[in-house]
């Protein structure tokens, strides 16, 4: 099973787990990306996420296909939120189930690393005194 979604509503983490948990799995690794309240000492009011939805889902599918090729994993879910998110809110959930935990850990980490490089999603940090599109880490 795999499911990729771009959502404009709050992500439901328990629902994500319910979708990928299975009696064939021995473990799930889940990454939850949340909005931090500060960047380089500046207080973040909120973040604005924007996605090129049709392409983002296709790029997510490529990452998932690659993960299935590289590791013996069972189910993969990626939910990414768009719109205005306040500090503490969840921007992304990546969950991977596998018979054995090493595959789940490796695939989950690969997916978030690659998502940040290839999936067309952008975020703008809004501070008390300005705003800035976030650049990818070099």
């Amino acid at each position: 099973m795999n499911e990729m979604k771009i959502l404009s509503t709050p992500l439901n983490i328990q629902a994500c787990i319910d979708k990928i948990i299975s009696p064939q799995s021995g473990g799930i690794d889940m990454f939850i990306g949340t909005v931090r309240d500060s960047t380089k000492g500046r207080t973040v009011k909120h973040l604005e996420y924007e996605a090129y939805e049709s392409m983002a889902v296709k790029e997510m599918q490529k990452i998932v296909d690659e993960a299935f090729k590289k590791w013996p994993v069972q189910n993969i879910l990626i939910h990414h939120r768009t719109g205005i998110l306040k500090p503490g809110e969840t921007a992304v959930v990546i969950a991977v189930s596998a018979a054995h935990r090493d595959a789940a850990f490796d695939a989950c980490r690969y997916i978030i690393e690659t998502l940040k490089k290839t999936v067309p999603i952008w975020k703008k940090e809004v501070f008390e005194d300005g705003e800035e599109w976030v650049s990818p880490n070099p």
Partner: protein
Amino acid sequence: MKVTILSFGSIREIFGNKFTEIEVPDTTTVDSLKALLESKYPRIKGIASYMVAINDEYASGDSTIKQSDEIAVIPPVCGG
């Protein structure tokens, strides 16, 4: 021919709109489209390594653009 360019993030803010119409020669590559956009919107030259996507796929510089294509300008992505 007239093509409509989709833009996002910092580039959308420079263009001023999510959809931008632009007149291009009938045979246009991604690289020549970029040159055209950069002459019209010089500020996008400040954006490191933005990409162009054609029909939801990253396109190389020598890809040719057709009028029916969905063309998008993609500043450096930063999801998660």
